[in-house]
Structures are given as C-alpha cells and as structure tokens.
C-alpha cells in the first residue's frame, strides 16, 4: 500500500487548515454560501435534503485496517453510526454538521486520508480494479499508476475549475471490473515489447447522455503519461462547453468534435507540453510501485478446510474469486443483505471488516464500484473462519453479481436532485428474488437503479437498469435492458412506458421469466437479451 512521505502529509495537513479557515469564514459570514459552495464541494461536503453529506476519498478503493477503523470511528462519532460506500469506491457520511467537518478532516489526516476533490468540477478520486494486485489476469498492478495520477491531479492549478467533474479509471487487465470506458478518461495498462504503457480512452460517461469512450491513444509510455493527460485536460478546459451544465462533460466535447479531431488537438498540445518537463522521472513510478509489492504469501499451498456447511459452500462459490497466488482467494463481502440498504455498513460492521483484513488479508481492504468490500488476499484455510465471522455480523450474503447485488444511488431518501426513491425499490427487488434460490437460478444479473437522470446508480450499465422519473408529481420507474459496464461494455435501452414501484418489480419478474424460458446453455441474462433483442422482452412486459 502507498504510504505518505513528509510531502504528502504536509499537503493533506495544509488542506485541513485551509478548510478550517474556510469554514470559519463561512460561519462568520465573510464568505457567502455561493462563494463557499465550490470550496466545500472541492472538499466533498454536499448539502443534502436533511443535512450535510461528507464524501471521503478512498484512492483507487484501497485501504488498510487502520483507515477502515477510522471510518468506523467517524460513523460512530459524527454520524448516526453508519457509512455508505459509493460507486466511486468512496464512502459517504450522510448526517454531518458543518462545524464538525474540519475536525473530521483532521482525524482523517492522521491516517493518511482526506476528502480532497471528492466533489466539484475538478479531477475526482481515481478509481481502479478492486482486484488489483490479486487478479490472476492483470499485466501489472494498476494502483501505482493510479497513485501517480492522484498526486498529479491533486490541487492541479489549471484544472480546478473545469467545465464539469472529471473521472479517471485505471485498470490493467482485459477483464474490466471498473467500468473503465464509462469514465471521462479510462486507462487500460497494456504490455508492448516488454514495456507497460497506457491505452487511453476518453469521453465516456453516464448521466443523461451516456457514452462509451472511444480510444484516444493506443500506447502512451509511462514517462509521458502525465503530460499526455495534461494535454487531454487542457483541450477540455479550454473548449468544453460552459453554457449548459448538461452539455459540459468531456463526452459532449468529444462527441461534437469527433474523436479524431479531439485526438489531433490533444496530440498537438502534447507535443507542446511534454517539452516543459511536466513528467516525473520513472524513478517516481518505481518508488510508488515498491510500496505495492506482493505481501508475503505462503509458498506452501494452504488447503481449503473441508466443511459440510451448505451456506458456506454457497458463499464460497458465489463470493470468492481466483487469486494470482495458489492457495489464496479474493473474498468479496456483500454489502447487499436482502432487504438492506445497498452499500451501507454500520460502524461495528466496518470495525469487523477491518479486524478481518488485519488478521486474514495482509491488512488490506478494497471498496468496489458495486458498493461491496473486498478482502483481496485470503488463504484458503482461513475462508471458513472469515465466513463465520461475516455471518455473525450479517455480512455473509452470498449474492455477488446476482440480481440482489444491486447498485442503487441514494435517491429521494437523501438526494435533493432525486425524482424517486431508489432504496425502497432495491429492497423490494432483493426481497422478491432473494428467496428460494431464485436469484441463484438467474445467475449473473447486474441490476442498477438511479433515482434521476444523473445516473449515479449506473442504470445505463445494468443488465437490467431502472431509472426513477417524475410523472406529474408521482414517482415513476423506467425499465432498461442490455447495459454492461464490463469489457463487453454497452448502454442499456429503455423498454417503453414506465411503471409504479410495484409495477417495475413485476416487469422485472416478467423479463427474467422470459430469460429462464429462452436461455441457451451457459447464457447469462445479458447474453440471451443480446441474442433475442428487445422485442420479445417488450412483448412480455406490455403485450
């Protein structure tokens, strides 16, 4: 894991003081709310329906037990005993007092954490593959590169008032677990002639105009990556639209210019800026990478302890994945108990996950963009102990990537922009399909719910997506089919007229019944949909 040196710590400490000063000026009236807003947003502090929400950065979703415990402490001390893990691999606290925010940031700084650029029209937290460093199929660990980009983008003086927010993801395998091409910039690290470089995509995103990022560069070498990103951002900062908030993301600029013209402008800019010495020496990437070395895995294969427990076997099958090192598994802890709030964890659960990481996973945890937690390196012989502890804490739901493993945005329960409530709907769907082995029968089925067109719940990328809309003052839900945020990326399409909350659950049942009736060997819901097309699904819903 990355460890701060004195410079990193000085920067985060200075930020705490700066924010303390800004809050004091706001409370004294020296700053108007209008002037204060972008400053607090740049520090992850939103004003929601009922209170302030603080979003804490978890860079590329990686944290250790000490940091995780701090999150539990904040939930307990400053919130109502809960934290909410987000699709940006961050955590949000929904009941924060403005006066407490500086102190919370000061506490976070003691464990090398912060809330810098978790909001605002700037470069946001860098996201990555939650299996980084553990996945069998990666060409390298993407996190050192993500850390390099994190540092470059932190308080970047030129790119702090962009036309709109800017999200970057870095992955390093052909399997995409991070929805890389649905980011403003998506980077896939690839190997060419024995060297690692960046394949760069730009202009993807969700929101009201979802787009899949086209490729902008097929191979940018490490020693030019930051100047290349600088060029990408400068073209956007200068030419991105600022007249209409809904057309201000880079995807609109690239769509309007065309990928070829955007690429041409970026390349021209890159020639100019790379001569300025913006790129750190390779030694800097090496310095960071040295902190991400493998933990001391045991070389003797650790056998799985045989156990007759059916619930354990189901969890083992569903929630653990192949590890690059023999004898280890990657464990995903589902934060989607049937009937619970997707992504929520209590302070006690957060502490327990920290304890398990410390004891069984070389002190590492990951937050996934699907709002779950990963213990990346668990020896096979410890799996039963881990599962037992999780079960006792209500964290052993065996539903990874099943229909009840729902991504849902906060929706109308918290969010001031919402049209509809996402959370109760997620609970209803999980309850309907979570019992009697129904979801196991359906297999992999990614369902995603957004409470409004801003698409924080990634509904465009759902095998099944649900979008909350407002119809004459009544909550209404549109159903979408056929999206994917993985390497087979695609955008979901709307089936037709929307439904009531119960109506949309019924409609989901109809489309999944059709899938069960028509699927061929080995097909997931998404595969059957792609083979059959929209029509038969429409027919069962509306026919």
């Amino acid at each position, binding site marked *: 894991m990355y460890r701060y040196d004195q410079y990193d710590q000085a920067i985060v400490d*200075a930020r705490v003081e700066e924010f303390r000063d800004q809050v004091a000026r706001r409370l004294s009236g*020296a700053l108007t709310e209008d002037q204060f807003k972008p400053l607090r947003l740049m520090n992850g502090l939103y004003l929601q329906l009922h209170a302030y929400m603080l979003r804490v950065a978890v860079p590329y979703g990686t944290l250790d037990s000490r940091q995780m415990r701090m999150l539990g402490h904040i939930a307990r001390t400053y919130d109502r005993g809960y934290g909410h893990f987000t699709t940006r691999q961050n955590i949000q606290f929904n009941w924060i007092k403005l006066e407490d925010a500086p102190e919370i940031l000061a506490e976070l700084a003691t464990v090398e954490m912060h809330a810098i650029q978790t909001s605002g029209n700037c470069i946001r937290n860098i996201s990555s593959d939650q299996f980084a460093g553990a996945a069998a199929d990666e060409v390298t660990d993407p996190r050192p590169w993500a850390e390099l980009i994190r540092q470059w983008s932190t308080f970047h003086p030129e790119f702090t008032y962009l036309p709109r927010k800017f999200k970057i993801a870095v992955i390093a395998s052909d399997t995409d677990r991070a929805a890389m091409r649905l980011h403003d910039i998506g980077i896939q690290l690839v190997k060419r002639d024995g060297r690692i470089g960046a394949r760069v995509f730009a202009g993807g995103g969700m929101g009201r105009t979802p787009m899949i990022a086209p490729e902008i560069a097929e191979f940018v070498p490490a020693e030019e990556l930051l100047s290349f990103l600088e060029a990408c951002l400068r073209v956007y900062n200068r030419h991105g639209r600022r007249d209409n908030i809904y057309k201000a993301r880079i995807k609109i600029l690239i769509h309007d210019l065309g990928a070829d013209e955007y690429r041409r402008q970026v390349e021209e800019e890159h020639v100019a800026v790379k001569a300025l010495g913006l790129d750190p020496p390779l030694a800097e990437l090496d310095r960071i990478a040295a902190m991400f070395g493998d933990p001391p895995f045991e070389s003797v294969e650790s056998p799985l302890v045989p156990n007759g427990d059916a619930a354990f076997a189901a969890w083992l099958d569903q929630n653990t994945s192949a590890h690059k090192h023999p004898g280890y598994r990657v464990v995903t802890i589902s934060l989607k108990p049937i009937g619970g709030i997707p992504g929520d964890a209590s302070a006690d659960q957060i502490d327990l996950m920290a304890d398990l990481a410390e004891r069984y996973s070389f002190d590492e945890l990951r937050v996934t963009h699907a709002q779950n937690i990963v213990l990346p390196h668990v020896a096979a012989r410890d799996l039963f102990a881990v599962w037992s502890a999780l079960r006792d804490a209500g964290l052993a739901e065996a539903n990874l990537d099943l229909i009840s493993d729902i991504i849902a945005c906060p929706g109308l329960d918290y969010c001031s922009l919402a049209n509809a409530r996402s959370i109760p709907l997620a609970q209803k769907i999980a309850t309907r399909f979570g019992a009697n082995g129904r979801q196991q029968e359906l297999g992999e089925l990614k369902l995603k719910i957004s409470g409004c067109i801003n698409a924080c719940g990634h509904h465009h990328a759902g095998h099944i997506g649900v979008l909350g809309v407002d119809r004459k003052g009544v909550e209404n839900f549109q159903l979408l089919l056929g999206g994917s945020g993985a390497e087979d990326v695609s955008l979901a399409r709307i089936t037709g007229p929307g439904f009531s909350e119960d109506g949309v659950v019924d409609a989901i049942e109809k489309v999944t019944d059709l899938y069960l009736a028509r699927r061929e060997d080995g097909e997931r819901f998404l595969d059957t949909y792609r083979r059959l097309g929209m029509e038969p699904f429409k027919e069962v819903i509306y026919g």
Partner: protein
Amino acid sequence: MADRDATDVAGDPSPALRQDAAGEQPAVTLEAFLSQDDAHAVRLEAGDDARALLPRLAQLKLVEISFPSFRDGRGYSAARILREAGFMGELRAQGDVLVDQVPHMIRCGFNSFAPEAAIDPEVLKRSVERYAAVYQRGADAAEPVWRRRHG
C-alpha cells in the same frame, strides 16, 4: 516557462493587488490588438484564444485575463499558454477573483490581480503561504515534490 524572479510575486507572499489600471495604456480587446500594430496591453475575455497572441508576444507588456465568474477556469489555461510561450510581462487576473483562487492563479503564471471585490490581505497572506509542497510543475518556480524526492 516564466522565471519566478521576473514576476512581481518573486516569492513575495503578497502579490500585487490592483483595483485600477491608472497611468498605463488601456488594455484593448483581442480583436483590436490584432488589427493594430502598437498596442502593448490586451485584455482577453474568457473565451478568447490566448494562442492568437503568440506571434506578437514580444511587444506585449500586459495581458489582462477576464474571470467573469470564479467558476470559469479557462483563464488558468490561457495564462499557462502565455507563460509557456515565454511571455514575461504582467499577467493580470481581473474580475471575479477570490482569495481562495489566487494561489492557483499564481501557479498558472498570474502576477497581478484586479479583483472586483476587495480581498482581505491577511486572509490572502495565509492562503498564498499555506502549501509548502506541490505535486505538479506549474508556471511558477515551485518545485514539484517528485523533483524534491528524486533530485
């Protein structure tokens, strides 16, 4: 890239704050500048292309860049482009220039400020002195931390 010693800032934590442009040639619009030969001062609106000035940079003493709203960040790129091209004169941020944005502006090469609303000099001093380390190379002389780490 601009040498910090050549600017008004020069390590001085109190950059020049000016409310007016008395006693100097008034800054003309980009269009006017391009159509006359002898102007030394030009004002760029947020949407103007700073690169249009590059062929005649040598004759310029002052470039004023407008910030119609502090949220409009185009002026930061304009400033860097001018400094990267070697512009050594006065680079002034005018308009909705707030104390919390000034440090970023300095890092992008601005060395004078004409804010619409008065800035408290005490708060400005704190703001400008706050960060002892920066992560990236800018148009100022601050050394990025990777340089300090690796020499």
